[in-house]
């Protein structure tokens, strides 16, 4: 895009936003504030009135224009994304965008992009969050087994006190200004992910209810129908259900109850995802692959029939039977499933890898890849044939739950088709200090520049990494990209990268870029030259990451950093590399770890590890730990946390790069 095109694009998007906003504004001014509209505006209003009000931007009386803007953004989003709607915490995500962009429409566009990536966090099914918890537990197990064991002894290994960290990407854990900085770094660590054509600002456009007595007929796109009816009706349905009202009287509200059913089994869904038979889930994937949108409903009913379990849509009453026994099982299974983190993670990895791809092709690819062993393990005891019922292998409850997971996964996959958000557009896409390409590349390039000055050895090493990627590997990466991000992504990448052919694999598969640990000494802020306010107090031991005020870091400092941490991974001997390969394979790859946001995992692990000594020395139990971290809200030292997290992240990335190229690498040695 040229500068002018970009300006026009932004203007167009802003206008689009204004139209979306005016639709519901008009409905309100007509006085038809009922149902979904009333519910949404009510929820949003409650929360914007208490979101970051201490910040000057939102301070003052409740009629602060910025508060109103935040309200408009969230309401517009909720009404035009009925499947996601509004959920507490979204205001926390939108708030820094509005502060940064200082323009309602621009902030809305950013928010849409951000939510493309994060909306699954807010799904009632809890799948995305469960996966993040699983990964966090795995990460902690990997980096601090002693502390993890401590947590397990205190039955705190579910890490639920980290819920807000994961949901809001740590936004609340730091003071507001620190949060901005942390988010800048965090979101910059994500691979660039521009939308295929242009960013969609709505999922299902909000239409003011003309008359509530005209439900859409069944034959319309089931996708649309479900979406329109979930968010608000789910809540209503849940209320009905948990108020122990006889369910049979609600036959006519099938889809609403379907929503409720999904909600009730949120935990089951997440549980079943990690616990259930891979055959089922994989089968679902194949279904999903075969059918895009139109066939999904049919197929899922088909699957249901085979499992002879009730579909809420067809038998609305039955799924809502919520007995304490079932609940107890859920609880137990849930906890059991958490302990099976390893298994579930590998399964999840598979699922993540396969999303949006062509299943058959993918299976072949996977069979050839390093994931093959785990896939085969999962496959062998199961039947993977598409239509073969596996229900007989499961007990009733599980079967029941599996179906839930199928449905939810469908939803999830649909969302994922839209996901792949572009971090750059979430935070300051038109800000001048960000180069015309992605943040990532910008910062990486900057790393390279400074690297050349400060440490020739490192840059040499990096070059060797880059050159060691053979054509074959490039192809493989491209294929992987295709599977993960879809064909269009790859094509787009190809186009945009055609001028930089040599570095292509480096660029496209951004995660594979071998950030060396020493690079991390420089925060992006420092590279950008905006890092000025941090005094030396933050630099003390700081897990071996001295902070210079600005400019290139002296090799001396870098050396100190390495020795201070004295980790064997820092060196580049062949042995160490081989060891890295072994250890790194324990953690999911970067495009999956933490739901595709590995740096968030390292931020969380950092927070946990920075407090582990204190926690262990005070022999804190589960509740005390939760309270301890609660007290730490907005008090964490952002520099310390970022530095330590970045160091771990860099090591992790390097290990994965090495693992990915291990063949070539070992030969090189």
């Amino acid at each position, binding site marked *: 895009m040229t500068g002018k095109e970009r300006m026009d694009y932004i203007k167009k998007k802003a206008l689009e936003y204004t139209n979306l906003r005016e639709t519901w504004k008009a409905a309100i001014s007509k006085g038809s504030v009922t149902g979904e509209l009333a519910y949404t505006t009510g929820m949003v209003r409650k*929360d914007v009135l208490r979101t970051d009000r201490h910040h000057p931007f939102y301070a003052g009386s409740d009629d602060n224009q910025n508060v109103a803007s935040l309200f408009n953004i969230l309401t517009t989003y909720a009404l035009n994304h009925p499947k996601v709607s509004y959920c507490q915490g979204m205001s926390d995500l939108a708030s820094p965008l509005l502060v940064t962009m200082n323009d309602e429409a621009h902030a809305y566009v950013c928010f849409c992009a951000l939510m493309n990536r994060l909306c699954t966090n807010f799904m009632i099914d809890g799948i995305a969050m469960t996966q993040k918890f699983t990964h966090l537990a795995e990460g902690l197990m990997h980096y601090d087994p002693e502390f993890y064991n401590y947590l397990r002894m205190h039955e705190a290994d579910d890490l639920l006190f980290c819920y807000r960290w994961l949901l809001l990407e740590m936004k609340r854990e730091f003071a507001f200004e620190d949060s901005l900085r942390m988010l800048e770094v965090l979101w910059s660590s994500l691979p660039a992910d521009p939308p295929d054509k242009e960013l969609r600002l709505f999922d299902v456009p909000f239409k003011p209810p003309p008359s509530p007595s005209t439900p859409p007929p069944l034959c319309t796109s089931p996708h649309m129908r479900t979406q329109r009816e979930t968010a608000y009706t789910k809540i209503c349905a849940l209320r009905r259900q948990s108020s*122990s009202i006889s369910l049979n009287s609600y036959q006519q509200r099938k889809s609403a109850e379907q929503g409720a059913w999904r909600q009730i089994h949120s935990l089951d869904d997440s549980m079943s995802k990690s616990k259930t038979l891979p055959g089922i889930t994989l089968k679902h994937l194949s279904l999903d692959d075969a059918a895009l949108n139109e066939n999904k409903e049919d197929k899922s009913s088909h699957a249901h029939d085979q499992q002879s379990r009730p579909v809420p849509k067809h038998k609305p009453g039955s799924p809502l039977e919520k007995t304490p026994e079932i609940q107890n099982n859920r609880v137990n299974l849930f906890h059991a499933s958490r302990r099976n983190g390893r298994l579930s993670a590998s399964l999840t990895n598979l699922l993540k890898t396969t999303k949006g791809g062509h299943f058959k092709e993918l299976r072949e690819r996977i069979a050839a890849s390093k994931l093959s062993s785990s896939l085969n393990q999962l496959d062998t005891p199961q039947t993977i044939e598409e239509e073969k019922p596996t229900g007989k292998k499961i007990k009733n409850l599980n079967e029941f739950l599996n179906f839930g997971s199928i449905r939810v996964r469908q939803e999830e996959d649909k969302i994922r088709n839209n996901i792949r958000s572009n971090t750059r557009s979430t935070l300051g896409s038109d800000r001048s200090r960000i180069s015309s390409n992605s943040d990532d590349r910008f910062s990486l390039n900057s790393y390279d520049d400074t690297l050349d000055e400060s440490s020739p050895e490192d840059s040499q090493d990096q070059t060797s990494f880059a050159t060691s990627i053979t054509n074959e590997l490039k192809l493989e990466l491209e294929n992987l990209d295709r599977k993960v991000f879809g064909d269009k992504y790859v094509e787009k990448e190809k186009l945009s990268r055609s001028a930089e052919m040599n570095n292509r694999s480096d660029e496209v598969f951004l995660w594979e870029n071998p950030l060396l640990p020493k690079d991390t000494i420089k925060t992006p802020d420092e590279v950008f030259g905006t890092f000025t306010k941090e005094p030396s107090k933050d630099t003390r031991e700081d897990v071996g990451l001295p902070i210079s005020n600005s400019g290139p870091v002296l090799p001396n400092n870098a050396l100190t950093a390495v020795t201070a941490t004295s980790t064997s991974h820092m060196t580049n001997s062949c042995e160490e590399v081989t060891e890295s390969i072994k250890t790194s394979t324990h953690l999911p790859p970067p495009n999956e770890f933490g739901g595709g946001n590995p740096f968030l995992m390292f931020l969380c692990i950092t927070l946990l590890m920075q407090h582990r000594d204190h926690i262990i020395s005070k022999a804190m139990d589960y509740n005390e730990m939760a*309270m301890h971290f609660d007290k730490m809200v907005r008090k964490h030292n952002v520099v310390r946390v970022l530095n330590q997290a970045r160091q771990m992240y860099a090591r992790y990335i390097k290990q994965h790069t090495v693992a990915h190229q291990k063949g070539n690498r070992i030969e090189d040695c």
Partner: protein
Amino acid sequence: MASRKKTLLKVIILGDSSVGKTSLMNQYVNRKFTNQYKATIGADFLTKELTVDDRTVTMQIWDTAGQERFQSLGVAFYRGADCCVLVFDVTAPNTFKSLDSWRDEFLIQASPREPENFPFVLLGNKVDLEPRAISSKRAQQWCQSKNNIPYFETSAKEGLNVEQAFMAIAKNALAQQNSTVDLYNEFPDQIKLTNTQKPSGGSGCCQ
């Protein structure tokens, strides 16, 4: 029980979003009120030491998120609770209507040993605000229908009845703990406590 000096009571606060759960907890623990609390994500926690019947107890208050979408977290947060505090906003009828589902949700998720005897306390908050939508009588009727749940009308903003309410909560929690820890010892007390604390509740206790 006398041999144990410190007792830990776990109390869960439930209710729709924005009814004042966080405010009540902070008013009680810190004697502070601000209308700038953030929406609770997951759960917040505070502890307070207090003396109940000459015993020092530590009350651990779990302030949960009000929005339905966080309910799946309940399992973890509710476990081991000694008392469940239900809160509604006396000016917002919907928050009153939700009480049933919150109570059911808790009983299902926490699955206490004797669900019918598990202590709940109901707080009608924001009595400082007008107009009033839920009358004391209506709230009391609901309490009666649920095995005589104690009811308090509170204002977290003005600190009205907050201390009394939490004292009742503590007593009920303690009674619950005693009844489960050593069933033989304190069981009669549980009933007595439930009765005696009602007058202390000031306005609007049930019955």
